[in-house]
Each structure stands twice: as C-alpha cells, then as structure tokens.
C-alpha cells in the first residue's frame, strides 16, 4: 500500500506548480557496483558454472572433464538414493510447514491475550530460534537416544521408550520435531506482529455483534493475517527444502538412507564420493524445486492476499 502512495507522489508533475526545474538526478549507478561484484563473485558466476558442471563428469579436481549431456539426470532417475532424498526433502518441507505454522499460530493467539506471562512467554518461546541449529540438533540427538531424556520421561509415565533416531520409520519425523521445536517461536513472532496490526476495535465490534471466537478468527483475523501467513509459509517451506544441518547432526541421513535429503546427498556425493558433476546435478534439481515452489506460492498467496484486502 505504502508502495503505491510513494509511486504516486514521486510521479507528481513538477511543472505544474513552480517554474520548471528538473528534479535532482537519481543517485549514480556506480553505487550498485560493490554489491554487484560481491554478488557476482559469490553467487551468480558460481551458480552459472554449477549449471554447466551438472552436464559434465567433473570430479572436482581434474581440469580435464567431458560434457556428458543429460547423463547425470538420467542416472538420478535410476538412483533410489537420489529419488528417496527428493521424496524426503519434499515430505520434510511440507510437514515442517504445516506443523510449525499450526503451532506458531496457536502460540501467537495464546500470547496475544491479556495473560500476565505474555511477555515472558514471547521471549522464552522465541529463544530457540536464535540458537545455532547444529547445536540444538546435537542436543536432541542425545535426548532422543535409547537412554536419552525423552525415553526416561516416557518411562515415568510407564510408556516404553523407542530408538527414535535408529528406526527408519521414525527418524524422519524426529527431524521434523526438532526443527518445529526450534522455529515454532519464529512463526509465532511473525503471526504476533500480524495480529497486533489488527485494530482492536474491529475485533471488539464483532464480539459485541455476537460473533463467537471461532467466527471472529475466520472472518476477521485470518484475512487480515494474510501477509504474515505469506511470509511464514515462504520461510518454512524454503527452509525445509534446503534443510541440511539438522539432518547432518541428528541422523547423518541414516539409518541407511532413510533420512537423506537433497542437501545431505549433495554433500556426501561431492565430498565422500568425489562425484562433483552428479552432486551439482542434484543441486540443480534442488534449485528447480525451490523456484517452482516459490513461484507457485507467490502466485497463490498473492491472489489470496488481494482477495482478502
């Protein structure tokens, strides 16, 4: 909204009011040069080279390598580890997005009330989000171990413990659990900022008119929360697709390949197997997934936001 206003004021005709003067020249283009050089060196050029290498058999060291066309990609289609990793990546990303935002929204609604502990709760629940993910993942690796605190706690209630990270059917969900534990507070903070931007009067007026809390949520809060929802979904789904640290620390992709994601496979293929070309082909697939998801989400949410406003 502010953006539109600004555009209008900047396009205001200067000539009408005063004797004609040209507005001061725009800031010079060379202001962008330092940022562009750094960006090109670190992101743009290596990414472009990466796309090229994906079509070669480069091993990372040998300057002599051959262009092999689509071989890396066709090999991927026959590689159960790669297909598994792509599936795990999507599953983890969707699960994190749904659960983390669900919990984050409930927490935000709970904190955005008149309870006395609201400020303390906000600070406390957000705290894990600033801690290094690899550190929280190592902490959880112990908690979820066979003799860990989670099994001890379950034992208190007479529930038999499990080998949470060693069971191929459970390990993936434990990764989701750890990420959600760490970042639910992050989603909460963004939802909270959205909730606090809703004028209290609208809410109270609806209450006086006799609409219950559920009705108020879906008719008032949800539409006005659209920008917060957009940002939260973007952050969690893209973060989930790129997930590396937590998988590396919690399971290393195991047991077997049960929790390998595209990112952990990229790392393993490049640095333990020396298959740089294949590894980069995986990175190209990752890029394509991120691009498709971002574009799709942008289109859908943009429409919803427009419809809501």
């Amino acid at each position, binding site marked *: 909204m502010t953006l539109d206003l600004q555009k209008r004021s900047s396009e205001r005709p200067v000539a009408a009011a005063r004797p004609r003067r040209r*507005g*001061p020249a725009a800031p010079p*283009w060379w202001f962008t040069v*330092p940022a562009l050089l750094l960006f090109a060196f670190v992101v*743009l050029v290596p990414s472009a080279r990466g796309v090229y290498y994906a079509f070669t058999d480069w091993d990372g060291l040998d300057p002599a390598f051959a262009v092999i066309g689509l071989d890396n990609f066709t090999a991927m289609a026959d590689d159960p580890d790669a297909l598994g990793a792509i599936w795990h990546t999507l599953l983890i990303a969707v699960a994190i997005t749904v659960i983390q935002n669900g919990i984050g929204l409930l927490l935000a609604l709970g904190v955005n009330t008149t309870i006395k502990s609201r400020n303390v709760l906000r*600070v406390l629940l957000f705290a894990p989000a600033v801690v290094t993910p690899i550190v*929280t993942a190592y902490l959880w690796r112990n908690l979820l171990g066979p003799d860990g605190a989670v099994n001890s706690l379950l034992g208190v209630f007479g529930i038999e413990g499990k080998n949470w990270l060693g069971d191929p059917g459970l390990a993936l969900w434990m990764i989701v659990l750890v990420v959600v534990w760490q970042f639910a507070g992050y989603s909460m*903070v963004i939802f909270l900022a959205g909730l606090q931007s809703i004028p209290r009067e609208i809410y109270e007026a609806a209450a006086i008119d006799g609409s219950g809390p559920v009705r108020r949520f879906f008719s008032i809060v949800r539409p006005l929360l659209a920008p917060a929802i957009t940002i939260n979904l973007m952050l969690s789904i893209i973060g989930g697709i790129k997930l590396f640290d937590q998988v590396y620390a919690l399971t290393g992709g195991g047991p077997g390949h049960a929790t390998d994601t595209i990112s952990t496979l990229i790392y393993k293929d490049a640095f333990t197997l020396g298959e740089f070309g294949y590894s980069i082909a995986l990175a190209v697939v990752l890029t394509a997934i991120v691009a498709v998801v971002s574009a799709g989400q942008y289109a859908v949410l943009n429409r919803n936001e427009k419809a809501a406003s």
Partner: protein
Amino acid sequence: MNRYTTRTFLLETAMVAVAIVFAFPVYVLVNLAIRSPSDTSSPIALTRSPTLANFSQAWQEGGLGGALINSLIVTAVSVLIVLIVSSLAAYPLARSTAHWSRGTFLLIMLGLILPFQLAALPLYQTIRDLGLLGSIWSLVLFYAGLQVPFTTFLYVGFLRALPRDFEEAATIDGCGPLTAFRYVVLPMLKPITVTALVLNTVSVWNDFFTPLLYLSGSDQQTMPVAVAGFVGQFVSDWNLIFAALLISIVPVLAVYLSLQRSIINGFAGGLKG
C-alpha cells in the same frame, strides 16, 4: 475484554505448561552439563553433586576460545560489509526507474531463489585455487556476497516508502550523491538497518555448511564447526559435549536476552518491509 477472568487463568495455565514442555530440553542440557560422567542416574533426575569440571575441560580441549573469536570476526566484518554495500546499492535501485535499474534489481533478486548448494561447489574450487581454503577471510568474502540479495531487498523496500524531500533538498544545497547518502539517507535507514543487522548476524553466526566446506582440515574453526568437531571427538562423552554445547549457546542467549526487544522486532520487521 481486558478483565482477568477464569478463562484467562486457564489459558495462562495452558500456555505456561506449553512453555515448560518447550524448555524441557534446556533443563536436560544444563542438568547433564553440570554432572560428573561417573554419575549414571536418569538424565531427567536433578543432578545431586553439580560440578563445573566439564566446562573447563570442554573449553581447553575443544579450542572453543579460538572458534569464538573467529566467529566474532567473520560475523562482524561480513555483516558490516553487507550492510554498507547493500544500502549503497539499494539507493539508486529504489530511486531510479531506468531500465538498467530494474534489470539490476531483478538480477540481484534472483539470488533469493538460488540455493547456496548450487554455488557452493564451483565456488569451493575457486576458493581453493586462490589458496583461501582454511582461511576465515574466505568466509567473510562468501557471506558478504551471499547476503547481498536479501539485504538489498530489505533496503529497497524500505527506501521506496521513504520520502525523497530530504535528499532532494540536500542535493539542491550542493551535496554530492555520496555525501547526501552518508548524512541524509543513511540516518533515515536506521530501523531497517537494525532488522538487517539482526537477521544477517543470526544467519552468518549460525551457518554450518559453508565453514564445514571451506575450513575443513584446517585449524581455523567457527563456533558451529568447532562444536561439530567436538561431538565427533568425544563421541559418547555426553556430559562433556553438553558443556561444550552450553558454552556455545551462552554468548548467543546473552546477546538475545539483553537486546530481546530489538531482536524480536527485527525478525518480525521483515513483515513490514
């Protein structure tokens, strides 16, 4: 609506219960970090004879002091560079409507989509050829470039909503573009600079993948890599490992708790950008 009713009390109880569940891992972390390895009682039982021996041993054997200093240098220098070059670039990108400006902006925004895994391997080769593997300056260079798109995005969004009157006045008064930027525009960018500072600091400080690649096999480490190395070295000596984890968390939490208002607002600030 503002009265404290029974329902409010029930909600408060439920929320506190949730917070206790969230805090449970932290309780175990501290509980085991202050426990001697010979104490084999349940991890959730309160440690009876707490000791600080794990901390001094972890500090001495983990090289955590050096890692802490490296992390501080890498984070401070790279974030400073990113803030300077991105705010500078955002100024013409937000003000000019010329083709080159729009094109450049879109090019930089492309960086928001490209996952770093794509650039990481070819860049690894370049850094290796430059002889910078194992040097923390390779990391500074890396983050300085990697964080440009996001930071520029924040600055451009903020600048577009900012009136031009002050900088126009400054230019009419004879200020050059650089002076106008430094003394007129930059001070007005303070709110978004705080947001960019917080978000960049957290992501650079916490990054693990890049230093794992570029520093592996060298004696230079950042905090996340040192912690991972420590876990690899003391495999199942969890009391010691927990002491190391706690040491790495304390500086982060100390900064967080002392600046919590700005930090939380910084994270939420992207919403308005």
